[in-house]
C-alpha cells in the first residue's frame, strides 16, 4: 500500500527531474551549453554546413577525446594523471623516430602504445604499492616523458609513412560531401569501449567503488589494488593512442607537442561532470566537455581573437561548472 502511494508520488516525470538534479545535472548542463554555444556560432558566422562544422570539431579534437576518456578513469578513482600531455608528445616523437629508422608502421604503433602502457603501469605501481600521492608520481612521469622527448629528438621529425599519411589525410565520407577522418573513428571506438567497460563490467563498477570509498571497496573484497593500478595503465595507453592520433594528424613528431594538454583533459572531464573527488561521472560527459572546449576554440579562431582568450574562457567555464558541482554536492548530501 505504502509503496503504491510512494510510486504515485514519484511518478515518471519527477523521477526524471530528480535524476537530472543529481549526478546527471552537470553533463546535461554542459550538453545544453554545448548546443547553445554551437547554435550561436553557426548563426553568428553563417556557416553554410553546420553538420560539417560539428564533424570538424571531432576531427580537430580526436586526440583530446581519447585523452579525456583515459583521464575519466583515473579521476573516477579519485586520482589524477598529470603525465598525459607529455606522454602524447613522447608518443609522437617515438612514432616519428621509429618510422624514420625504417620500422613498419604497425610495429611502430604497437611499440608506441606499449611504451605508454608500460609508463602507466610503472606510475600505477608506485602509486599503489608505495603509497606515494598520484599527483607527485604523475608529475615525475610528466617530467620524465617530456625529458625523454628531448633525449630522442629536439627538432621536428616528419612522418612520411604512406599508411599513416592515409590514416591522417584521407577523408571518410559519411553522406554527400560530409566527411570525417579515420582518427575520429578510432576515437569513437575508444569512447564506446570505455562506456562498455565502465558501465557493464565488474572492473568498471570497481572503479566507481574505489572513487566512492577506497576502504569500503577493499572491505567488500573488490580487487582495489589491481584496479587502482589498471586505471593508470588505461590512462597511459589512452595517452599513447592520443599521441599516435596527434602524430598522424600533424604528420610530425615534436617534443613541444601537447604542452598543457593534461589541463585540457582535466578541464573537459570537470566540465562534463566528472567529480575530481572521485566516484561520480560519465565517459560521455567528458566527451561533451571536449566538444565544449572545441567550440570555444572555433569561436576564438573565427572571431580572430588572440589565442589567450581560449584560456580565459576555459577558466571561466571551469569556474562556473565547479560552482555548479559544489551546489549539487551540497544538495544531495
Amino acid at each position, binding site marked *: 500500500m505504502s509503496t503504491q502511494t510512494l510510486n504515485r508520488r514519484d511518478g515518471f516525470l519527477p523521477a526524471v527531474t530528480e535524476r537530472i538534479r543529481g549526478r546527471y545535472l552537470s553533463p546535461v548542463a554542459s550538453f545544453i551549453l554545448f548546443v547553445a554555444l554551437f547554435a550561436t556560432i553557426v548563426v553568428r558566422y553563417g556557416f553554410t554546413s553546420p553538420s560539417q562544422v560539428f564533424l570538424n570539431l571531432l576531427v580537430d579534437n580526436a586526440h583530446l577525446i581519447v585523452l579525456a576518456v583515459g583521464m575519466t578513469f583515473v579521476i573516477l578513482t579519485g586520482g*589524477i594523471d598529470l603525465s598525459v600531455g607529455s606522454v602524447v608528445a613522447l608518443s609522437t616523437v617515438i612514432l616519428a623516430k621509429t618510422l624514420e629508422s625504417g620500422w613498419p608502421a604497425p610495429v611502430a604503433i604497437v611499440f608506441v602504445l606499449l611504451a605508454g602502457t608500460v609508463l602507466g603501469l610503472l606510475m600505477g605501481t*608506485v602509486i599503489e*604499492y*608505495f*603509497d*606515494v*600521492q598520484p*599527483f*607527485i*608520481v604523475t*608529475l*615525475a*612521469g*610528466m*617530467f*620524465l616523458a*617530456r*625529458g*625523454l622527448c*628531448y*633525449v630522442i629528438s*629536439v627538432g621536428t621529425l616528419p612522418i612520411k609513412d604512406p599508411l599513416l599519411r592515409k590514416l591522417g589525410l584521407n577523408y571518410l565520407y559519411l553522406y554527400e560531401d560530409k566527411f570525417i577522418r579515420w582518427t575520429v573513428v578510432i576515437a569513437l571506438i575508444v569512447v564506446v569501449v570505455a562506456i562498455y567497460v565502465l558501465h557493464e563490467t565488474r572492473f568498471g563498477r570497481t572503479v566507481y567503488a574505489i572513487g566512492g570509498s577506497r576502504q569500503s571497496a577493499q572491505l567488500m573484497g573488490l580487487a582495489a589494488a589491481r584496479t587502482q593500478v589498471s586505471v593508470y595503465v588505461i590512462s597511459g595507453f589512452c595517452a599513447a593512442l592520443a599521441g599516435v592520433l596527434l602524430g598522424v594528424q600533424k604528420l610530425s613528431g615534436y*617534443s613541444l607537442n601537447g604542452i598543457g594538454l593534461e*589541463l585540457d583533459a*582535466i*578541464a573537459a572531464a*570537470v566540465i562534463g561532470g566528472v567529480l*575530481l*573527488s572521485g566516484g561520480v561521472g560519465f565517459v560521455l560527459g567528458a566527451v561533451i566537455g571536449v566538444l565544449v572546449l572545441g567550440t570555444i576554440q572555433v569561436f576564438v579562431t573565427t572571431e580572430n581573437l*588572440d589565442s*589567450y*582568450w*581560449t*584560456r*580565459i574562457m*576555459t*577558466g*571561466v567555464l*571551469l*569556474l562556473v561548472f*565547479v*560552482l555548479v558541482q*559544489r551546489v549539487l554536492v551540497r544538495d544531495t548530501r
Partner: protein
Amino acid sequence: MTRRVIASPLLWPALALIALLGLNVVLTPSFLAIRVEDDHLYGSLIDILRNGAPTMLVALGMTLVIASRGIDLSVGAVVAISGALACAHIAAQPDGNSVTTVATAMLIALGAAVVLGLWNGILVSSFGIQPIIATLVLMTAGRGIALLITNGQIVTVTSERFRVLGAGYALGLPVAILVSLAVFAVVATITRRSALGMLLEAIGVNPEASRLAGVRYRTIVFAVYVFSALCAGIAGLMIASNISAADANNAGLWIEMDAILAVVIGGTSLLGGRFSLTGTILGALIIQTLTTTVYTAGITPETTLVFKAVVVIAVCLMQAPKFRRLLRRRRGAAGPPTVPDDDVAESAPRTDTVAAS
C-alpha cells in the same frame, strides 16, 4: 644524537644536496670557489642561490598551503600576472627609473597578487571547493589574463631601479636571495615561535576537528592562500626584474610544479598536517643545483627534466614509509638491523626536529 640525526626527516634531502654538490666538485674542481668582483661575490654557488630564489620563495608559500591540506596550482599564473602588471606600469610611465614609478609598479603587482590570493581563499574556504580544482581555475585562466595585460607581447623595460630586485647585489649577495631568506626568517619565526604553525598543522590533520576545537579555520586558510599568492607575486617581480621584461608566456612556467617538488622533497607531506620550512629551502636548492649540475656536466640542458624525474622519484620513495619498511626488512634479513625497528623511538625525535626547524 646520532639516532636523532638518522631519524631526522631532513637527513635525506640534506644528503641528496651534499651528493649533488660533491658530484659537481668532481666534474668541475673549481665549483665551490667563490671570488669577489666589483664588491660582490661570484661563483657557481652564488648563481645557484640567485637563480633558485624565486622557486624558493614560491615554495615557502606552497609549504604553508600544503600544511593546511591544500595545494596552490595557480602560483605560476600569479608570477606571470605580477610581472606583467609591473612591467606594463613601468613601460607606460615617462620616467621608468624614478623611485615612485618603480614603487607603484611593485605595489600594483603585489596588490593584484593579494587579490588573486583572496580569490583562491574564497573559493577554498567559503565555497568549500577542493583546493586542487579551485586553484586550477586560476591556473588555466591566469596566464591568459597576463597575456591580456601585455597584449600578447613581451614588454621590456629600462629601469635600473627595477633591476635591483632580480639582478642587483647588496652586502655582496644577490638581492633576490636576501629577500627570499628574509621571508623565510619571518615565516619561520611567526609559525614556530607562535601557535600559528601548530594551528595550521591541526587544520591539516583534521579540518573539522580543529574547527570544533575553536581554531579559526576560515581565517587561517584565507591567510595561507593570500601568503602563497603574495610570495608568487614577489617571485614574479624577481623574474621580470632579472630579465627586465615581462614574458607572460614563459615567466614562471612550471614553477608551481617545481615548488611542489621542493616542498615534497623537503619532507612536507602532501596530506597536510606536518611541514618543514627548512626542508623546503633544501628542496628548492636541490632542484636548482640539479639544473646547474646538468649544465656544468655538459649534458644537453633539455634533458634536465629526466634527471629531475629520477631525483623526485628517488627522494619520494626514500620518504615513503612502505618503501623504507621494505628496505629495512631486506637489511634485517642480511644482518642485524642498524636502524632501530622501533616506531616510537623513531617518531618521537622526529616531531622535535620539525618543531625546531
